[in-house]
């Protein structure tokens, strides 16, 4: 395997190293999913791990999302630390019963007798011309559900360090990795060895408005902030990172400071995470806002195949810039 220098790596490698670390650190930890072993993972995240850890710990499964997930739940209750991979969140719909009716409920329904320390990783998002059934962003749906933690690593650092935090958590944790990020490359600060999976993070400071975003939209928001800066508008970028539970404190502090907010969410607008965020801001921060809240979301269509149509459907840098300008310099 072609490892790069330890400080510079792709998002994919960061995910792989995180899994590798977890397997080395804890003999109870194992990976289970479709094509995670011989094939190396459909996004090549688990490539090489089968050779290193063997088929007991890198378990290729049949195509059966529900039992893979449910078995992960049972194994977690039974004392193991499963990392379940579901190829893309689109397929997680076949495992919804297990995620929503078991993983999320057992702790509460049992009066605190059973915890479910399970991690489920799945790819999310569009932008690779894979058409509707491989491009949807469903993390916002999962963020609706009490009992699970929903993470969206948008940086190399989070891809590298969130898994360990998720495994240390006694609750079911869903990690959504955006497909367009896998090839992204970045530097990893060796001094940082852990991350807090209860906090949002400010990725860029700015005084004029706050852009709330996460995952695959984070690089777009940062690019938009660059363009805005050139036009004299300083945008603060808050990377939500944790979609459930939302870190109100960081979000409110930023929006309270800038008094303007654009929310960028690759989910559809109706009933989305962006809707939740906007509602919270309206409920709790209304008197501190100087402008209406704006949302940049995916257009309300199944994601199309054709590149120009897909681009038009997904939130783009230009859409973010336009929304931001509309707030700060109303025509």
């Amino acid at each position, binding site marked *: 395997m072609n490892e790069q220098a330890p400080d510079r790596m792709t998002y994919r490698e960061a995910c792989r190293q995180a899994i590798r670390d977890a397997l080395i650190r804890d003999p*109870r930890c194992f990976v289970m999913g479709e094509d995670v072993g011989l094939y190396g993972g459909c996004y090549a995240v688990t490539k090489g791990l089968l050779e290193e850890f063997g088929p*007991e710990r890198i378990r290729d*499964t*049949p195509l*059966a999302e*529900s*039992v*893979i*997930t*449910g*078995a*992960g*739940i*049972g*194994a*977690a*209750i*039974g*004392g*193991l630390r*499963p990392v379940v991979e579901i190829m893309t969140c689109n397929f997680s719909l*076949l495992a919804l*019963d*297990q995620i929503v*009716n*078991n993983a999320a409920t*057992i*702790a*509460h*329904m*049992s*009066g*605190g*007798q*059973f*915890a479910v*320390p399970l991690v489920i990783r799945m790819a999310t998002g569009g932008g690779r011309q894979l058409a509707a059934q491989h491009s949807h962003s469903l993390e916002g749906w999962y963020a609706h559900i*009490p*009992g699970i*933690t929903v993470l969206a690593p948008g940086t190399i650092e989070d891809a590298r360090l969130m898994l360990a935090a998720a495994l240390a958590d*006694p*609750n079911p944790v869903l990690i959504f990795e955006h497909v367009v990020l896998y090839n992204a490359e970045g530097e990893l600060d060796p001094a940082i060895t852990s991350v807090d999976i209860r906090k949002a993070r400010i990725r860029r400071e700015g005084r004029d408005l706050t852009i709330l975003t996460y995952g695959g939209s984070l690089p777009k928001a940062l690019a938009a902030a660059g363009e805005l800066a050139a036009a004299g508008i300083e945008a603060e970028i808050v990377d939500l990172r944790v979609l459930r539970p939302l870190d109100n404190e960081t979000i409110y502090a930023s929006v309270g400071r800038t008094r303007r907010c654009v929310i960028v969410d690759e989910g559809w607008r109706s009933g989305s995470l962006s809707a939740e965020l906007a509602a919270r801001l309206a409920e709790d921060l209304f008197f501190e806002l100087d402008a209406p809240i704006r949302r940049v979301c995916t257009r309300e269509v199944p994601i199309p195949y054709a590149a120009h149509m897909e681009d038009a459907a997904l939130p783009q840098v230009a859409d973010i810039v336009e929304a931001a300008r509309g707030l700060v310099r109303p025509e």
Partner: protein
Amino acid sequence: MSAKLMIDRSHGQHLFREMLRIRRFEAKCMELYQAQTIRGFLHLYDGQEAVAVGIMQALDERDAVVATYRDHGHAIARGLGMGPIMAEMYGKLEGCSRGRGGSMHLFDRASRFLGGNAIVGGGLPLAVGTAMADQQLHPGAATVCFFGEGAAGEGEFHESMNLAALWKLPVLFVCENNLYAMGVPLEVAEADTEIIHKAKGYNMPGEQVDGMNPVAVEVAARRAVESIRAGNGPWFLECRTYRFRAHSMFDAQQYRTKEEVAHWKERDPIVRMQAWLLEAHLMTPAELDEIEAAVDTEVAAAVAFAEAGTWESVDELERFVTMDEVPS
């Protein structure tokens, strides 16, 4: 193979007493339900007692049990106290799930009782998972997974059977085939009404057993668990049984005739066991009286325990949505 089971006095009476405990407990539940003391859904196990009681004879404290919403019988036979179960029905803090689960979600960590699952088929993947953990951490332990024949229509059933057989997991799948899924008769739901055939499709050993006879169930369960403990992988039991009462309390039972119910009641596992024990002089009428009195006392004590229970503070509502640590 322990195919032949010696039923001595004490074991025969034990089986009878265990079934009677379930029957009388539920009769009380029914009464309390009609009085609206306990609410929600109430799925009674009347008629099926031989299955839970027979199966549990083959288990010990190592093993895990995954049940369905029709779980009072499984819970009692597994050894959960009647008091905490009844308190759970009342919704009291002293209930086995702190009153958060109710009739359909009885849980007990101490006896590895992983609760009633109210999603048809939903417990099977879970059982596959506990078996995975046991295979690695506690070799020799088995998970028993109960479900009705209705579950055989669900994808999760098939996914679970396949994975368990593929990975030789220590699971005992127990299909309680009571011939109806709510009001849907077996022949309306299944292209092949012999549920046992499905085990073959997954290369899994199994057998069909008379679910109205606790001894037959116990014999089959012992054989199954012995094989599972030896590391041979899962086993499938189809227990042919019948529920005497409605599916739940809101069911006029228009899908079956009174004659059919009456016909099955002639095979009532408790009545037949009682008659057999008396005839074979394995139980004297005086012993029968004693057992009945003891069971009635236990049920009354459970009700008293539940009545004396407390309501969990609403301040605790959001507790255990997430946990601070994994209970050890």
